[in-house]
């Protein structure tokens, strides 16, 4: 690892100025857990790293709106802060559940919500979860700000729609009392591993009847992907084994899955059909 400049601006103007450079080796970073691995592997050789940890204000903190209808989560919030937040536990239990198998304590103490979203690795656990919750990211740059649905952050494998100079400042997550969510992290080698598939589901149900549903697949695809055909099949349906099987088939048909060291394409497609059904059963309270 060659030497580089590390700066910690304390206000946004300075941060934008430091990042105002076409060189892709000038980068912002949150916790740095992913970036450090890329640097050690010499996949990324920074010239200047701009830490966002001293920006404060909107980059920090977890706040629930007064009417308890949404969360504002600062981009520099660490996973540990999410994991141990009583409000998150009460209103977004899927986040607390996901943290149990996400990386390890040392990583969770350092990794940040914003850095995780900006990394673009399709194997990450949280992006599909934020997607199924209907979350949006507040992006700021020197000329303004915009709200972007999480799904629209991703363009492909390790590819985001963020431009040089864009910073993820906040995450806005709606609280939807009528919905229940679950994240299935499917590993195929050791128990603790990167997922072969990540399946995040949210369902608004009345008994066995599905009023609305959102399904996101990650890890087996090049970016977190809504399974629209499977959703269409389930929306308005009463859940039974046959419906779940058809939803599994629809899911397999609508995505392109490649073979990798976590499993052949054929096997991962099979796992998708099985675990999608199980995830739906889990949220429906089976």
């Amino acid at each position: 690892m060659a030497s580089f400049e590390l700066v910690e601006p304390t206000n946004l103007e300075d941060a934008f100025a430091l990042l105002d450079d076409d060189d892709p080796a000038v980068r912002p970073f949150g916790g740095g857990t992913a970036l450090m691995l890329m640097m050690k592997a010499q996949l990324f050789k920074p010239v200047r790293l701009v830490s966002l940890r001293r920006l404060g204000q909107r980059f920090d903190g977890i706040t629930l709106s007064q009417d308890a209808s949404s969360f504002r989560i600062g981009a520099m919030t660490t996973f540990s802060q999410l994991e141990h937040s009583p409000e998150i536990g009460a209103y977004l239990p899927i986040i607390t559940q996901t943290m149990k198998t996400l990386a390890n304590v040392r990583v969770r103490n350092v990794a940040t919500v914003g850095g995780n979203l900006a990394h673009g690795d399709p194997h990450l656990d949280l992006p599909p979860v934020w997607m199924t919750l209907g979350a949006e990211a507040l992006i700021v740059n020197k000329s303004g700000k915009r709200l972007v649905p999480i799904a629209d952050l991703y363009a492909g494998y390790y590819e985001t729609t963020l431009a040089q100079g864009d910073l993820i400042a906040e995450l806005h997550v709606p609280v939807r009392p009528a919905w229940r969510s679950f994240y299935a992290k499917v590993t195929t080698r050791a128990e603790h591993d990167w997922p072969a598939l990540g399946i995040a589901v949210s369902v608004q149900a009345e008994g066995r009847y599905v009023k609305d549903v959102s399904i996101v697949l990650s890890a087996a695809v090049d970016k977190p992907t809504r399974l629209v055909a499977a959703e269409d099949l389930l929306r308005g349906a009463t859940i039974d084994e046959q419906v779940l099987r058809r939803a599994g088939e629809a899911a397999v048909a609508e995505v392109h899955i490649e073979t990798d060291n976590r499993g052949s394409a054929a096997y991962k497609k099979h796992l998708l059909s099985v675990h999608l059904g199980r995830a739906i059963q889990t949220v429906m309270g089976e």
Partner: protein
Amino acid sequence: MVAVTSSPNIGKSIDRLEAREKVTGRVEYVHHLRLPGMLYGKIFRSTVPHARIKSVDISAAQALEGVYQVVTIDDIRKVIPHPYYGPAFHDQPILADGKVRFAGEPVAVVLATDKRIAEEAVGLITAEYEDLPGVFDEVDAMTSETLVHDVLKPAATFPDLQHLKGRSGTNVALDYHLLHGDPDAGFAASDHIFEHTFRTQQVMHTPMEPFVSVADAQEGRVTLHTASQGPSFVRIEIARLLGLPENRVRVVVPHLGGGFGGKLYIKLEALVTALSMVAQRPVKISLTMEEQFYMVTRHPCTFKIKSGVTKEGKILARHCEIVWNGGAYADIGPRVTQKAGFTSAGPYDIENVSIDSYAVYTNRPPCGALRGFGAPQTAWAYECHTDMIADALGFDKIEFRRQNLLREGRPQASGTLMRDAALDQVLDHIVDRMNWSVPLNKGTGRIRRGRGIAIGFKGITAPTTSVAIVNMYGDGSCGLYIGTVDMGQGSDTVMAQIAAEVLNIDAASIRVIHPDTDVTPYDMGTLGSRSTFHMGTAVRLAAEEAKAKIAALAVELGMPEGSNVPLAELFRRKYGMQAGNIIGTGSFIPAYEKPDTKTGQSTKATPFWGVGAAGAEVEIDTETGHIKVTKLVNVADVGTAINPKMVQQQLSGAGIMQLGFTLTENMVFRDGQLTNGSLADYKIPNLLDMPREFINEYVESRQKDGPFGAKGAGESTTIALSPAIGNAVADAIGIHLTDLPITPESIFRALQEANGTPLAGD
């Protein structure tokens, strides 16, 4: 469990001598070492598996500020004219010499005062290759026209490999044969014949401390500080390379963070020595965790096993054909081929046995010794095969084994008699701990359960020598000088216990002097479960000699026989002050007879037998193939457990390691390229993979010629674990898997195949 003896030192779980230093972070490791003027080396590696090197462009790297020198084989040849090394064959060039033979092979080294600069400079080196066809599979390599080496170069280092001759036109480095009885007649007389083929995958040692070596070459001598399991061997091989006498090469080894057979023989030592000679400065190379995949690994193998069985369940004949994939350089593979070969028919009393075991070269990273020395790969075949026969003929799996087990005094396939091998006791203990007499609820829904057992054994590398020195100082305190490397197994403590028992002193008061070839005497290496038996005996002899000399000194000073005057007082009376030493030495080499090269027969093929058995219960989700080992029992014969707590840690550690080799660890290659060379993608087991019930025990037994009845314990629980799990899987789903690792996908594929709905290839 063995009853605690009345001895003050033997059978006592005393704490590790270095425990406090370790937990307070003060233990010495080579990684901490910095010498004045030291340069850091970083390796530029081949990106292709088999090619002629057309050119290597080092100019940009050389021009980078802070780079001291970029070194290729041409520079090394100036200081070492014949830069080839290896324990069994002198086949490995210190840096690639005209050709590369595996992807990841060292081609050049950047030396710099800062390791980050060295790393950056490596990224500026480019090489042009003329690709050659590669051979990667061991069975292909037997007949392939692609040759990894044009001429084979046996080293003639070991007495048991001295018959090897240089050959050409083949990838077979060594072929080992054993013939016992008349297999043709045995098969002809059998009622049933079974033949199965098993495969194991390539895996890696993954020590927590990656390879690291420092060399300081000066005019006519060299000092090495290295994380090595075999300092004596390093000295001999470096002295040979440099044409120096042994006393001009000093090898110093502090504690190791694990070795498992990887840090044996020559690894980075030849390279750092050459670099230090070229640069005339001390040189250090520390591998990253990821680079370890290109240093040494465990042999994949293909094992075809055929048995003839009578209708009553007696195994009459067995033929074993094993091909070991040794990778691009032989390392100790030929010895693995021979040593694991001779026990590959399993711990059974079979009158007619033939074994053909082949070490072959391929264009993969080299393979060498790894905890078990090939025995785990062979047991995977012969113990799954045992259950497959029992299943086919409706035999009880325990009784079928008992009926055929080798017993005390019976000849093993090599002709060597079984002595002090507690096979029956170990099997009985497993049966008991598995509650085998109580039927298992196997389930009827999507979760199916099964259980399996297996038993295995291994011979111990022979012949090998250990020498120990006990030095009693002027105040009566004791220093123990041994070449055994404590890499976490606790040898310092056990050796101190043995010396303390003889000298009747407190083990914790003994200072164990770590390997330094200027100071400590010869030892073959800390390998193959040999230290407790070999070095333990040498330590016992050295302590006995010191004790006799102390008694003689007392007599010389006119003390009455049996007087208890302390040694410090004896010294004071003899020398008039606190002065002097009493030195006891002990040297041990067990009896050995070289096996006949055609029939493998020997009356003394091994100094003792390593024995282990395992039992497993598994749960399988038949919808996904997901497997969970819910119970795992390891039972070993360790003779007397000198330190019961550390023995148990050895047994469980070896078991966990083998659990990884059974279920999760697999070096995956595509066209000779490793595709998962990092711990993010090469999965060693962690706590979540541990069985809910995990039992590690040893049986009451005694190795009569071992120190206080002890034998080695480091490998016993690696042997039978994989087939125990394989047999449990078969019990759960009715299908015997033949290839390791057993993965959810391999289980699911087998289920689909059996259902007549095979899963697509990808």
